[in-house]
């Protein structure tokens, strides 16, 4: 087992990895940029080292600075989390060169999956189903037109080096093809320095379902069930669940077996996720493989009862997987809400700033993986993910109801969050029926807005305004010093009594 792991990340995922290290008796090392000195992941780690200015390119993406911290701390392994350097084969290579273990797949597997066309070639050889289309670079416009005609419109043009929707064009009919191809090529060139574009049959409002896989370094690979990730905004997931309401046991097994085939074809080890598009006929097609731990891994942990980060670390030490496929039992249902500092009603405008009050839910079936605390100043420089609220229950209905009550307990003051969005999603009949697709969230936001003021609520607010004012006055008039700026129940009581007496004198 490792002695010391450096976590090359921040926020909730760094906290998550630190917790796994502590469980395993491994010393955890945090790194932090200048604005993250007081961040939760730094507070929770065993050791911590500064790695530069706020801009991620100068700190969390700065490989030399991170390798300096590795040397200073004598860490013998690195966990990259997700995002930042987690899918950067250069970083994995730098780790290997420095003699520290990168907790993830080999740089070779990462590289292969990074190129969509190379991955597709290899996976087609392995018999993995793809959306019908070309795997070669597109030839002349004439021939592209012929291929598109064979596939049948609508078709999708995609950048080979792409991701995040860049260099993608949906083409509804033949007349649009020429200009779309040109646009996709130039966008791909600008975004990735590579104008290679390929063509696929377009699947309209597909479901986005992914399969978790885990492979050790001895050739054992298992799948751990799927996650339904169709609720997205701008290709970014907002709410995920496991299992998918769409899949039955048979389809789950077929999808799991394909995912394991993908991982084996890439000689993949450690945790990875195979993403699929699912069309209206429940046919599924390989989309891509994410060569890292996913944000939404907790829902798989809850339905399988496994600790994925602990397993990642064990695999990286060279241990064999402690179980086989037949030992994996899926029980219950889990849903994750990604709590962002952003306003869903204002085009997801980010809302960094100080968290003045934080009431966090707890109790049966509720897990909160948070990267923040009351008093923390959410910096503007990074992803706005504050925490993941994860619900678990015996079945999908109970999980929805548990999350609904947890949202009721959840309050983040001082900044705007998307918490109300989850209430609207969970209450939506389409979601409750399990019929969400990738267009669901845009439709929901177009239909309705967050609940606004009501006359009953306004009356409560009016009452509260008066009570706050009266108690403030009482507190100001009271000579009792209030430790730490907080009133004690008893003290408040007595200062009200004082206020009451003063009032009585005035009006008497």
């Amino acid at each position, binding site marked *: 087992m490792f002695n010391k792991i450096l976590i090359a990340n921040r926020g909730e995922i760094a906290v998550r990895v630190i917790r796994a290290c502590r469980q395993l008796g491994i010393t955890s090392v945090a790194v932090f940029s200048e604005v993250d000195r007081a961040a939760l992941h730094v507070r929770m780690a065993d050791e911590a080292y500064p790695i530069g200015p706020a801009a991620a390119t100068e700190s969390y993406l700065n490989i030399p600075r991170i390798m300096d911290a590795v040397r200073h701390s004598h860490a013998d392994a690195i966990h990259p989390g997700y995002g930042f350097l987690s899918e950067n084969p250069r970083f994995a290579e730098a780790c290997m060169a420095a003699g520290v273990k990168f907790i993830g797949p080999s740089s070779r597997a990462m590289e292969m999956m990074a190129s969509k066309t190379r991955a597709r070639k290899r996976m087609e050889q392995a018999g993995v189903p793809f959306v019908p289309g070309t795997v070669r670079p597109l030839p002349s416009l004439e021939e592209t037109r012929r291929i598109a005609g064979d596939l049948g419109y609508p078709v999708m043009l995609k950048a080979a080096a792409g991701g995040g929707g860049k260099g993608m064009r949906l083409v509804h009919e033949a007349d649009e093809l020429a200009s779309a191809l040109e646009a996709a090529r130039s966008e791909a060139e600008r975004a990735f320095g590579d104008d290679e574009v390929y063509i696929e049959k377009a699947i309209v409002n597909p479901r986005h379902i992914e399969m978790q896989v885990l492979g050790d370094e001895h050739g054992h690979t298992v799948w751990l069930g799927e996650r339904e990730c169709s609720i997205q905004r701008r290709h970014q997931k907002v709410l995920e669940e496991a299992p998918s309401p769409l899949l039955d046991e048979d389809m789950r097994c077929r999808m799991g077996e394909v995912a394991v085939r993908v991982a084996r074809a890439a000689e993949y080890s450690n945790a990875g996720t195979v993403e699929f598009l699912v069309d209206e006929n429940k046919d599924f097609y390989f989309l891509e493989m994410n060569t890292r731990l996913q944000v939404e891994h907790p829902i798989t942990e809850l339905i399988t009862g496994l600790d994925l980060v602990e397993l990642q670390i064990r695999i990286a030490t060279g241990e064999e997987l402690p179980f086989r496929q037949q030992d994996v039992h899926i029980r219950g249902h889990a849903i994750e809400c990604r709590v962002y500092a952003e306003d869903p009603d204002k085009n997801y405008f980010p809302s960094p700033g100080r968290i003045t009050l934080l009431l966090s839910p707890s109790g049966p079936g509720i897990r909160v993986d948070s990267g923040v605390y009351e008093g923390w100043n959410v910096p503007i420089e990074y992803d706005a993910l504050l925490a993941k609220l994860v619900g678990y229950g015996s079945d999908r209905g109970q999980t929805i109801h548990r999350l609904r009550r947890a949202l009721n307990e959840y309050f983040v003051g001082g900044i705007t969050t998307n918490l*109300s969005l989850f209430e609207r999603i969970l209450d939506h009949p389409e979601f409750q029926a399990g019929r969400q697709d990738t267009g669901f969230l845009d439709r929901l936001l177009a239909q309705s807005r967050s609940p606004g003021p009501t006359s009953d*609520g306004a009356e409560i*607010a*009016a009452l509260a*305004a008066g009570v706050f004012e009266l*108690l403030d006055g009482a507190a100001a008039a009271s000579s009792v010093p209030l430790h730490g700026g907080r009133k004690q129940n008893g003290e408040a*009581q007595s200062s009200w009594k004082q*206020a*009451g007496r003063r009032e009585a004198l005035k009006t008497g």
Partner: protein
Amino acid sequence: MLFDVTIEGHTHHLELELLAGAWQARLNGRELALDAVLAGPDLLALIVNGRVYEVMRERSSAGTDLWVGRVRYQADLSDPRSLRGRKGKAGSDRGPVRLLAAMPGKVVRVLIAEKTEVNAGQGVLVIEAMKMQNEVKSPKRGIVQKIMAREGSRVNAGEVLAVVE
């Protein structure tokens, strides 16, 4: 104590007393069974007619917001008895505003005629109670649409005296 509380531009009249630890509240003329306790510096736990509410306060340079559940209410408060009513954010108030009697008393003087213009903070009428004269001011600039109160008449607390639009 008497408060005019403006919530999202609409003014509520609140009478609030805390006597020997027990709250007495009358909101817009209705008696409410109120219990209130701070659960944090900006966190108020209320029981109103048996129903439980939690209200979170956010203060900023822009003013005070009160959260009731997931809904934010912009709040502005003045204490009409003290005649030092805080200024509402002039111009941001839309729609008619009702001026309410701060306490039971007698209308001793009407300062402005119906259908004439009034400025924010300008006195509209004067009420006398408990040997004190209180000037009831307009929270915003506008036209005095209607004056319900007549000089010399008695009014109850929370009674509408005038409407400014």
